[in-house]
């Protein structure tokens, strides 16, 4: 009797792993089937890089910008802006699931609620990792060679993913607390552009007016952008440790807050 049980148990995957794998797989299948997502998700950041980089070419007259080209300066900004967008969009699928009743159907199954959330994080993290790689690849074609080599590229990806986790948490919490999806999208549109301007994405910290500089220093994006920019233009710096700590704190705060909201919304 025991041998039979053991045989069956060996064929069974760890239940939690099975749940997370199945749900993450679902996100990838959906992504693959929506050509628009692929086009927007993967080419938009590249387009931005080229657009912003070339548009502001003559803007290297801005004090503080010492990059060989504005594209090299912009790469950090574009990576982080892409992470911002993908992260904040991370909760959208949950919103739709909630609205059409599919979320309820999923929750009627014996799954751990966290498996659903984790699968979203996994998907968004992998996606943003890809996007960051593509941006760096494109920048490379324009002659941008990261000063820190492949190791630096790896760290850039880590920074991007850490930032992405925080924004995904925010997105999920919003998706669960908003009544309809109109409010969700309005809010997203409302905060995205200001967040970009209130960071060092387009203009370095030193060149900002005093009040803007203060606000930008409260924005985790600023630290991520400066870190990535540094890794591309300058090289290794002890400041990077500070950035990683700041991002870790940002993630912890976002995850705790969003976890509380999600637990209230799902039982």
């Amino acid at each position, binding site marked *: 009797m025991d041998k039979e049980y053991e045989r*069956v148990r060996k*064929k*069974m*995957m760890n*239940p939690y792993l*099975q*749940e997370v*794998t*199945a*749900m993450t*797989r*679902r996100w990838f*299948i*959906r992504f693959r*089937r*929506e050509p628009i997502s692929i086009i927007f998700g993967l080419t938009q950041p590249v387009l931005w890089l080229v657009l912003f980089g070339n548009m502001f070419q003559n803007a290297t007259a801005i004090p503080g910008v010492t990059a060989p080209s504005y594209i090299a300066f912009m790469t950090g900004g574009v990576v982080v802006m892409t992470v911002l967008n993908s992260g904040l969009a991370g909760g959208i699928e949950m919103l739709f*699931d909630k609205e*059409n*009743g*599919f979320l*309820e*159907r*999923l*929750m*009627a*199954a*014996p*799954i751990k609620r966290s498996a659903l959330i984790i699968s979203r994080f996994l998907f968004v993290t992998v996606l943003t990792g890809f996007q960051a790689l593509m941006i760096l690849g494109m920048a490379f074609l324009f002659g941008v060679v990261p000063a820190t080599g492949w190791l630096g590229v790896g760290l850039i990806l880590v920074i991007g993913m850490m930032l992405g986790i925080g924004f995904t948490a925010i997105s999920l919490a919003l998706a669960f607390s908003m009544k309809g999806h109109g409010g969700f999208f309005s809010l997203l549109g409302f905060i995205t552009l200001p967040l970009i301007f209130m960071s060092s994405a387009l203009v370095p910290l030193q060149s900002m007016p005093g009040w803007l500089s203060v606000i930008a220093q409260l924005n985790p994006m600023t630290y991520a952008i400066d870190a990535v920019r540094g890794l591309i233009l300058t090289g290794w710096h002890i400041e990077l440790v500070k950035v990683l700590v700041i991002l870790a704190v940002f993630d912890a705060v976002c995850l705790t807050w969003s976890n509380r909201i999600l637990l209230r919304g799902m*039982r």
Partner: protein
Amino acid sequence: MDMTPIISAKGLVKRFGKTTAVDGLSLEMYEGEVFGLLGPNGAGKTTTLRMLITLLQPDEGEIVVGGFRVREDAERVRGLIGYIPQERAVDRALTGREHLALFADLYHLPKAEGLGRAAWALEMVGLADRADEVVMNYSGGMKKRLEIACGLIHRPKILFLDEPTLGLDVESRTLIWRHIRELKAEGMTMVMSTNYLDEADQLCDRLAIIDEGKLAALGTPRQLKESLQGDVLSLTPEGADGAGLERLEIALKGLDGVVQIARRDGSLELRVEPSRTIVTRTLDVMNGQGIRLEAIQYTRPSLEKVFIHYTGHQIKDDWV
């Protein structure tokens, strides 16, 4: 049939803000039966169902499903029940087969078993040939059938159906009813909420009429109809002329269980107390009188009348 209930709900209360959706409801369901929750929209039957399947926490009350208490062991309960939701809760970007693969994993079936069960389920609901198309191309009836397949993939002991044929065309309705009957024949316990009287009447072994969050009536469809004591036996004697009818009426008036007799277009309508023997006794009287029958009909009150009787209003309000 085992007399311990497979589902027991005691004193359920659920409030949403100021509204009390479910107000002290207690129910028991037994293994192998099809149990119906009948009531208009807003009556509390969907809320009750969602509490039974662990998706909603009752404010008060205890629920035990399949031996597990819902409050403490929600996960175990979810593993042994199947749920067919009311809306077409499907992912339009996935294929039918991918849905089944997803749920096979969510119910922790080992890979090989999951594949086998998926194939069986698709076959059972007749979607095997369209399984690899995305659900966006499915009709409403097909989506419902896919949901049934997904609900059965893990061999649940109890199946919960929330308004299974709501909004479906006649053909799909017939198909779903057939599936329900087949499942019942295999011994599946089912709890079904519905606001279709014909559905409740034909499919359910027992019904709970729920109105304004409370239990208004409970019984088999037959018991509920009989409780109205409005059975009607309608007789059309051969060659019915005024005199013949009158003779018959007099002869039948004294019959035990006959409450009232009315004459209607050459027939007699007898209001009778529900009885197993009234028809034969009536025929005996007619034979004794040498009267032959052209037509005979015995009707119980409709479930609609039952509903109005116990709740004081119709199941569908026209102007609310």
